[in-house]
């Protein structure tokens, strides 16, 4: 081995290597400076985002109870089957297995997987039965991407029978999220979408809480950093009576129409039904978009609450307004009589009474009982349209009643001023004659007519129909109803006429044993002829039958309006329904045959 090797080249080149290494390490240090000092804030936010999760603690929605504390709406625990596609090693296999386990088609499952956010579980089956949950539990290992969550589900024990008053819940819509009212909500939140659920949505929702938790890389919670407990939505105690509600729904026996009953002294609504209806339970899971589409295009309009949104000609029930106005104005006394020859010929038109041979000489009592048109034509011509309209409005027609439900219609009481403004035409005297018997442009809602019965029953107090008695145990104060200032003796005459309607007149089928029922029949001519040309079934040409009533005659406890669509005359179509409702209210056994034996129809109106 040589002692002196020439190492100069080696030494120079080692120097180059040293510089190279030093240069690389300096570059690394500069890079760490940018990461740890320049961009530290950005990465700190990412680390924080990694470690903490905000878990919403959903506040249970407040339950709805009837006036006696019976449950109308509650939350029941239900199971949702979730699938997180990102967690599946073999998505096709998982979907196939899941389909077999749940008894669902693969196409149906796949449909659920479209349109969704990444890494978020999808509800593939809502409100799954316990058997499904057990079956999934047994296949836990093969179906790792599948999980089951327990969620409170809005439950409506009366199902369709109280659908329109109670309403329904559904996922908050895109449009709602953009409105200020819902701006604080997240997509997927359940909100009231109709009825009381919508009207009192904010109160019922309570206040969601949250937990800020520290999670490890597997998503397991290791600590809780912060929490706010949820505040339960307070319960609402309603004015509804669930038994009466169910009975009212049964009384319709599948026919289309609506009915509403209220306490004439307070305006508390005891029951309200609109048919056809829908089962609000079906909306609770929030994953049935097709259902809404189907119901909203149904020609039977099951989503419409006819009690407050159905606008109909009042027909002969409007004669209550006419009688009250004429008596109050002193145009007639209880003894004033008119002669009915079966028609009235004025303004070059022949206005017919429904009894062609005429009722002969009748006073207001008889005219109400027999629903004589000619008598009320005479009143109309004497009152004239402006006074008729004023009295109709004093009795609460032509404007929303202010019920605590969304989207209430106002109806219409025509006047020359209205006609000039809207139709740009002068008022004709003949129109006044039509209005006198509730035809023509007059439109009312069943709720307005029930309230009219209440106002007559309670001596002239314009009560506000409402559905909530107390919220979270605190009674909701109701302002004293304004007294409309009718003379007591005037209303007494109208009431006795209404008693005669049931006792001896057109409303005999509403008669109750032992209880004096006051009522008034009516039939609304079906206006839209074009619709019937499209669906020319036999029943669709029949007029809608009205029956408005209160009972008992002394100290009335219930005021009622019933409308049966295409039910024919009020006496035949609506009075039997009212009879069943009243019988249920007074705890009487409803007879098998709706018409009480021995009742004969003195007349068939219009």
């Amino acid at each position, binding site marked *: 081995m040589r002692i002196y090797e020439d190492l100069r080249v*080696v030494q120079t080149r080692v120097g180059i*290597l040293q510089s190279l*290494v030093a240069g690389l390490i300096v570059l*690394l240090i500069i890079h*760490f400076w940018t*990461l*740890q000092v320049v961009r530290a804030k950005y*990465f700190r936010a990412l680390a924080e985002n990694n470690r903490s999760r905000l878990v919403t603690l959903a506040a249970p929605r407040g339950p709805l109870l009837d006036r006696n504390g019976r449950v109308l709406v509650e939350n029941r625990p239900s199971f949702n089957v979730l699938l997180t596609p*990102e967690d599946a090693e073999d998505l096709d296999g998982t979907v196939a297995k899941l389909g077999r386990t749940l008894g669902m088609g693969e196409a149906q499952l796949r449909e659920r997987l479209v349109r969704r956010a990444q890494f978020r579980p999808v509800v593939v089956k809502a409100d799954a039965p316990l058997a499904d949950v057990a079956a999934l539990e047994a296949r836990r290992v093969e179906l790792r991407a599948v999980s089951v969550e327990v969620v409170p589900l809005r439950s409506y024990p009366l199902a369709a029978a109280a659908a329109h008053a109670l309403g329904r819940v559904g996922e908050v819509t895109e449009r709602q999220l953009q409105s200020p009212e819902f701006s604080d909500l997240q997509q997927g939140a359940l909100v009231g979408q109709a009825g009381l659920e919508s009207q009192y949505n904010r109160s019922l929702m309570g206040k969601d809480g949250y937990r800020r938790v520290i999670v490890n890389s597997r998503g397991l919670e*290791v600590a809780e950093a912060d929490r706010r407990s949820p505040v339960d939505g307070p319960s609402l105690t309603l004015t509804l009576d669930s038994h009466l509600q169910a009975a009212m729904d049964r009384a319709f026996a599948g026919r289309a129409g609506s009915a509403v009953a209220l306490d004439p002294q307070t305006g508390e609504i005891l029951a309200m039904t609109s048919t056809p209806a829908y089962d609000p339970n079906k909306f609770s899971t929030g994953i049935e978009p097709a259902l809404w589409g189907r119901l909203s295009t149904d020609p039977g309009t099951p989503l419409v609450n006819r009690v407050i949104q159905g606008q109909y000609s009042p027909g002969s029930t409007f004669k209550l307004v006419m009688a009250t106005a004429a008596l109050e104005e002193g145009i007639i006394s209880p003894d004033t009589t008119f002669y009915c020859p079966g028609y009235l010929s004025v303004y070059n038109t022949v206005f017919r009474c429904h009894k062609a041979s005429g009722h002969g000489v009748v006073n207001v009592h008889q005219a109400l009982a027999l629903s004589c048109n000619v008598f009320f034509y005479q009143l109309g011509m004497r009152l004239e349209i402006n006074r008729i309209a004023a009295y109709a409005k004093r009795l609460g027609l032509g404007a929303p009643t202010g019920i605590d439900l969304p989207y209430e219609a106002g109806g219409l009481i025509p006047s020359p001023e209205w006609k000039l403004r809207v139709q740009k035409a002068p008022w004709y005297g003949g129109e006044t004659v039509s209005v006198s018997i509730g035809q023509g442009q007059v439109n009312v809602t069943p709720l307005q007519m029930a309230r009219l019965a209440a106002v007559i029953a309670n001596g002239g107090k314009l009560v506000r129909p409402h559905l909530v008695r107390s919220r979270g145990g605190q009674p909701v104060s109701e302002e004293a109803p304004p007294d409309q200032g009718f003379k007591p003796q005037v209303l007494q005459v109208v009431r006795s006429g209404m008693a005669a309607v049931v006792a001896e007149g057109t409303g005999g089928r509403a008669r109750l044993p032992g209880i004096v029922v006051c009522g008034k029949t009516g039939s609304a001519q079906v206006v839209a002829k074009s619709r019937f040309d499209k669906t020319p079934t036999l029943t669709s040409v029949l007029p809608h039958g009205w029956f408005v009533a209160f009972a008992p005659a002394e100290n009335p406890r219930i005021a009622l309006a019933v409308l049966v669509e295409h039910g024919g005359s009020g006496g035949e179509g609506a009075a039997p329904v009212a009879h069943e409702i009243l019988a249920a209210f007074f705890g009487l056994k409803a007879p098998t045959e709706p018409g009480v034996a021995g009742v004969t129809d003195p007349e068939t109106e219009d």
Partner: protein
Amino acid sequence: MAIDRRLLVNVDWVLLGVTLLLTGLGVLTILSAAHSGHGSGLYLKQLYLVGLGLPCLLVSLLVDYRRLADRAVPLYLLAVGALLYVLFFGPRIAATRRWISLGSFHGTLQLQPSELVKLVAALFVAKVFAESRSETLGLRDVVGPGAAVGLLALLIAAEPDLGTAFCLIPLFLSVAFLAGLRMKAVLALFVVLLMVGGLGWQFALKDYQKTRIYTFLDPSLDPKGAGYQKIQSQIAVGSGGLLGKGYKQGSQAQLGYLPARHTDFVFSVLAEEMGFVGVLTVLALYLLLLWRMLETAQLARDRVGAFLAAGIAATFAFQVVYNVAMVAGLLPVKGLPLPLMSYGGSSILSSLLAVGLILNVRMRRFAN
């Protein structure tokens, strides 16, 4: 064999000190990275291994490095044999065959021969080039040794352990460079390596390896998969800030977001908990370590010593730079430990022995 007192005087205490300091910092960081759960004893195991490695280092000083270099060829053959053995008979762990089982000691004790093969390769390359008599080397002169080292690299790559296989490239290149390889030849070698790399990409790389490289180029391709490690490591480093989150306080490390945090990503834990100040300190220590190693190559009394020291230093430098750059998200994730700091028996043993070899060269720079 008695040891000359003069030799002891010439031991590079700075290099030894820095080595012990980095090893100690490694143990502390491993303790932080895995102080709870089933990994809580890992720092202790690392401590035992250091305790085992240091005597080995001292014993290795007794043997003159030239004696070792003289046995480079038989050692080389032994290395090939060991690698073949691992490839065919080694236990299969995580789809790789890298280990020889050595029985049981605080869990199973396994030796990764490829770590020690690096040292054998350094001895072999140093010896071969030291014996070359020409002033300058052309491409033709490096084909032979290149093929020999390439065989080792291929055997390691087949385990597969690409990271360790790659370490042999800087080793070979730097020694060839010092041995007088012409600049033109250095460039030509680069071209050859690139072509080999291209062919390797086409035929040799496994799918998971390709995905790693793809996702390195665009981590958002697979944020939960192969890009995850890079993203999480960058978050850990960046969120450490100037002063760090404090020892055992790193949320990325402690909550398990960092993968392989006591092995390949141990530097990431340090960066998160000790901040830029800690990073600066440790990188300065590594620079000092590498500087002293290369200085040894300058001071060596003969070519074998210079080449041995430089080859080992180059391997070390490559591993440190690659690992730290990977932790910072600059290079694709590869299973390449940080010498002296990462958890792992074979790695720590091989690193300490490597330091020993360099001390060996330096202390004998005056000896005959």
